[in-house]
């Protein structure tokens, strides 16, 4: 491990990384271009100066909504060095949703692309938002662009924090929590520094037995979780390769072009790669490791990856939640020649970070090894609670222990076997979707009488969000109206994958609870009739 757990803030870790790394060392590969540490530092310095002139300082929230690009990384470190608080907004959130999040965070500055600027500006004006919007590239109205060169004689050392308090907020994010209802969380410099150590476990011992220049091609979006893990991976010395467009074909072109040593992708994306009919036409011999996260990595998937990536010899999968600043536990091991790995669900707490785990029964009592219960976590990775939500904080954070809501078997010695997620959530492509949030949104549409949303298992991609909608009359609302309504305010991963109009929501006898199983059965029947025929 090239990072040692004695530095307590992201700023200390950044300075340490810069000092121990030669400036000519390539650190990022983007769209065919190599970015050295020297390039990265110059851009971070330029952004630091630009943003100090835009009055970014401790206590100032800076929102940004950008596609995958190196500027996301420069921005994050520049905001950190000035003591500001970053609010990354997934670009696919509709503008109205972004404006609401920015207003709730009291953002004073927002950074976007020239392409997204006009509609974001319009939505912000409609909502009476008062923050300033600047762009990373050319500004369509000639306004402030962060790409403009800073004054030549301006020293970034004169504006960066001399001392960074470990408990200074650095990242504001949204969590679906254990119920799936979105809640805001604040991560401090100390939380995120702890995460750098935890995430570097995904990389070790990969770096120990690899030559310098070891690279990984990434297909994670550089949103909250992606950016957090990137810090850990980059500070560990890996050369990270990524692209703005992460289609499976583009990704394999990237792997081939750069002869990447490893791939860092969600499990669902592995499935998409494996389903490419032209996969055999790509040179896959460079890939030796796979690093995953955001979802379960099954032994069967590792085996199928081994069939197509013959030199694959190691895997690692990270486990964690936003409330634990992402990865705190890791499952990893070697991949033998036959591709059969004993377990990928047994995850082990990363040592040396200071986190603790406990498995408890429903009454909150600690349970012994071999038994099943709910995973609780305490330590430097764990956040203080939910912003402005004392009730939910009290429910989920007790005496510093965070209740993950995930069902596990206690394997002792800091390890657990993951058995399942909370029953209320739909795990769609690695992201948690609350059926309640989607249903409430559907029910707001004029012409909709009732609705229910269920997660329908998909053989390759996790779960699909399937909405059943009862209309007030058959011509009251059509598919297009429902989809338009959903896409106007819900993030793209929350928009239902399928809509089925039904006369009434099936209910169970007795007190009349919604019969989720009946709807799942209806959906599965339809899925079988369509998808079954499609598998070739």
């Amino acid at each position: 491990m090239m990072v040692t757990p004695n530095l307590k803030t992201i700023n200390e870790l950044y300075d340490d990384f810069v000092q121990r790394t030669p400036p000519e060392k390539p650190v990022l590969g983007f769209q065919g271009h190599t970015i050295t540490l020297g390039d990265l530092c110059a851009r971070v310095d330029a952004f630091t100066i630009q943003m100090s002139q835009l009055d970014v300082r401790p206590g100032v929230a800076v929102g940004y909504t950008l596609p995958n690009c190196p500027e996301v990384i420069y921005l994050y470190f520049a905001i950190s060095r000035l003591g500001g608080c970053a609010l990354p907004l997934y670009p696919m959130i509709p503008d109205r949703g972004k404006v609401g999040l920015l207003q709730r965070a009291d953002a004073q500055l927002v950074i976007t692309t020239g392409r997204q600027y006009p509609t974001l500006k319009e939505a912000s004006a409609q909502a009476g938002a008062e923050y300033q919007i600047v762009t990373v590239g050319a500004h369509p109205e000639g306004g402030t662009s962060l790409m403009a060169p800073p004054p030549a004689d301006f020293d970034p050392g004169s504006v960066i924090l001399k001392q960074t308090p470990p408990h200074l907020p650095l990242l504001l994010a949204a969590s679906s929590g254990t119920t799936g209802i979105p809640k805001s969380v604040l991560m401090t410099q100390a939380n995120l520094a702890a995460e750098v150590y935890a995430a570097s476990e995904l990389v070790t011992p990969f770096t120990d037995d690899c030559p310098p220049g070891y690279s990984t091609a990434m297909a994670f979006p550089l949103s909250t979780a992606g950016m957090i893990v990137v810090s850990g991976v980059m500070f560990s010395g890996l050369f990270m390769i990524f692209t703005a467009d992460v289609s499976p074909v583009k990704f394999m072109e990237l792997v081939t072009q750069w002869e990447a040593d490893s791939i860092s992708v969600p499990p669902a994306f592995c499935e998409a790669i494996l389903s490419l009919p032209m996969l055999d036409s790509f040179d896959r011999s460079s890939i030796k490791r796979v690093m995953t996260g955001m979802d379960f990595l099954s032994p069967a998937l590792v085996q199928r990856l081994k069939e197509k990536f013959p030199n694959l010899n190691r895997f690692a999968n990270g486990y964690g939640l936003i409330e634990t600043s992402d990865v705190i536990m890791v499952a990893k091991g070697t991949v033998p020649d036959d591709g059969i790995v004993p377990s990928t669900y047994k995850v082990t707490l990363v040592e040396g970070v200071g986190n603790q785990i406990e498995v408890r029964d429903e009454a909150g009592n600690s349970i012994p090894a071999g038994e099943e219960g709910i995973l609780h976590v305490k330590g430097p990775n764990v956040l203080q609670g939910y912003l402005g939500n004392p009730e939910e904080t009290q429910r989920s954070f007790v005496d510093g222990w965070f209740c993950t809501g995930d069902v596990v078997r206690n394997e002792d010695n800091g390890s657990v076997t993951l058995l399942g997620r909370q029953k209320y959530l739909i795990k769609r492509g690695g992201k948690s979707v609350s059926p309640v949030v989607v249903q409430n949104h559907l029910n707001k549409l004029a012409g909709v009488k009732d609705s229910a949303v269920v997660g329908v298992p998909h053989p390759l991609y996790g779960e699909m969000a399937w909405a059943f909608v009862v209309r007030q009359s058959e011509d009251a609302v059509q598919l297009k109206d429902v989809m338009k309504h959903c896409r106007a305010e819900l993030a793209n991963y929350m928009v239902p994958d399928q809509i089925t109009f039904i006369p009434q929501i099936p209910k169970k006898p007795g007190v009349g609870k919604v019969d989720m199983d009946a709807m799942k059965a209806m959906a599965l029947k339809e899925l079988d009739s369509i998808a079954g025929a499609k598998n070739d």
Partner: protein
Amino acid sequence: MTEKIEWPDFAEKIADYTGLEKGDIRPEMNVYYDLGMDSLGLFSLGMYLTKTYQVQLPLSAVATIETLENIIVLINQQIEATV
């Protein structure tokens, strides 16, 4: 389904599924970048088109799709192959 799918009809179906206006649907639109889809979203769109056009789309081909034009070409190839 035995007749070739024409763009205006296809654009209307895409508009229905995405909630966008038909006039905003263009053949060169990237399903990932412009429509904000992921692998599962693309598969779900494939399911909808399968139902709508009564044509079988091979799952292996869905992963290769990048633009709306790729989809209509794929559907018409499948129709042609079954006629």
